[in-house]
């Protein structure tokens, strides 16, 4: 009966558990309704290429099947049409080379997923709130 809501968050994540935890964290702040989940990098790029309206933020895991997260990031930031799309790297990796490479490619944030659930909920929802509600994107 409702027409589908516009996608505001693209969650790129291959782990179903992490998808569920992330959605739950977003739901705590009513941010979970307009989330599209891509299970690998190829699916994410496909979604971005075929959606008329871009999401307000991409939550991107780095370790993904098919096309890696860093490659997804690189393609988003290299494409003039999607360059302004905010990308928040949300990953388990705390390794310095990953962080450096992500920022070099133009990541807007880099968040290490906390193991502790309360910390995780806080981190994800703060990021969601910031990019969805506070950030003022350029006119498209």
């Amino acid at each position: 009966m409702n027409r589908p809501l516009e996608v505001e968050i693209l969650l790129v994540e291959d782990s179903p558990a992490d998808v569920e935890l992330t959605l739950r964290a977003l739901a705590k702040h009513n941010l979970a309704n307009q989330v599209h989940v891509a299970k690998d990098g190829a699916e994410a790029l496909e979604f971005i290429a075929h959606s008329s309206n871009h999401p307000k933020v991409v939550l991107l895991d780095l370790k993904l099947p098919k096309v890696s997260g860093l490659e997804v990031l690189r393609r988003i930031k290299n494409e003039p049409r999607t360059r302004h799309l905010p990308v928040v790297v949300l990953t388990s990796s705390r390794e310095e080379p990953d962080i450096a490479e992500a920022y070099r490619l133009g990541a807007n944030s880099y968040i290490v997923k906390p193991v502790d659930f309360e910390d995780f909920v806080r981190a994800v929802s703060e990021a969601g709130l910031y990019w969805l509600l506070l950030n003022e994107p350029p006119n498209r």
Partner: protein
Amino acid sequence: MARPVGGSKRRSRTSSEERYRLLFHNNPLPMWVYDQQTLAFLDVNEAAVRHYGYSREEFLAMTLKEIRPPEDVGELMETVSHTPGGLHDAGVWRHRRKDGSDIMVAITRHRLTLDDRAIALVLAHDVTEQLAAARALKQSEDALRQLNAELELRVEERTARFRAVAETATDAIVLGDHTGNITYFNPAAERIFGYSAQEAVGQPLTILMPATFHDSHRSGFERYLRTGEARVVGRTVELTGVRRDGTEFPLELSLASWRTTGGQLAFTGILRDISDRKRAEAGRAAHASALDQANIELQAVNRELEAFSYSVSHDLRAPLRAIDGFSKILIEDHGAALNEEAHRLLDVITGNTRRMAALIDDLLAFSRLGRQPIAKGDVDMTGLVHAVASDLRADMEARGVQFVVDPLPPAWGDQALLRQVWSNVLGNAAKFTRRRTDARIEVGTQQRDDEIAYYVRDNGVGFDMRYADKLFGVFQRLHSSEEFEGTGVGLAIVQRVVHRHGGRAWAEGRTNEGATIYFSLPRKIERGE
């Protein structure tokens, strides 16, 4: 002009006079006739006038004495008085010419009697030059003889010197002739090749090389003799030698050629057995290649380690997050339906996930330590201790811990890593004194010759020295998690950092009386590191 003595008989003796004129006046050698009694010149020929510089008239007014140097006159007179009349007389005399110059003259005298007077006919042959030439010849002969003697002496000395050098040289010295035969073989050559000099001399040089080299030696030798084209002469080359017993060995040959006095080519070879050097080189090469191999393996291990820690970092955390997250969700969504024991069990699960997460973080930090490069500089250790302690101060002040820091000498090391060391050591001291009301932590140094040992002493729970070696192992703990929290990586990190600085770490302690953790760092070496 011919004018014979006794002109009265002139006409009757025309033919005789003619002969006399030819023989006497035209004779190319000086001649004269003198009176044996008075020694007065009775006649002189043209050659005499020319040679002595006196005119004929002057001659005829002189005696023999006047063509002698005054000092020779005595001898002349003696000779005259002692010489009985005879037909021939000959001798070499010194005469003085009118210009005062002396000449040596070979005299041939023919005595005869004319009109009862004893006269003498003299033929004077100037031999000054011959005598001078003879004298010069003799002198140069003498000089030559002298030179020769000197040369012989020098050759003898040279030979002695050569022998002294050759006989004591540690290198083999072998001389060869143009036929390719050995002409000299020094003691070192005897030692190296196993032939006596007596055996070797006269043998072809090829006895010193393996058979496989004989052909190339002969062709090279012949080419050199024929064209002078040298491949070995004048250089140092490495070859293979063969001993008398047939064993082969590597040698270094320096070969020179020279010409004998007979103009024949000869060769001097200086040979050195380089077996030891070759062995050492091979050893070094093997060692280097082993090092290279180890290095390659190490790099592979490092890459693997990196991949491993990446996996640990990523893949081990994700399930933990799920365990923790879903446990919390269970409580959130179904907490009301769970009894107290179920809540306790879920707490145990989440407590362990936290602990596991801490272990992973520490393990990764520890593994990073081994890989990250060390950036050394001067480090103000006193400042570092106070900076680190400020993080612990709130806790320590609340407990009334007595914290004493001696002035610490600066260290030469990586500031960030040394900060980690102090943080772990001081954190331990704070942790293990927690149960004491009179806790005391001291920081100080012990100066040694080439290193500085820093220490942190506490009066906490201490440890049993029997387990001292376990203190610095990864995940080694001497207390239960209930007693004191921790992953058992702190001192392992301390030890690794200190080792990477070239220092060491150790500990002293007694159960319930406290512990002292030491770590030493090498002193700064001036001029680089």
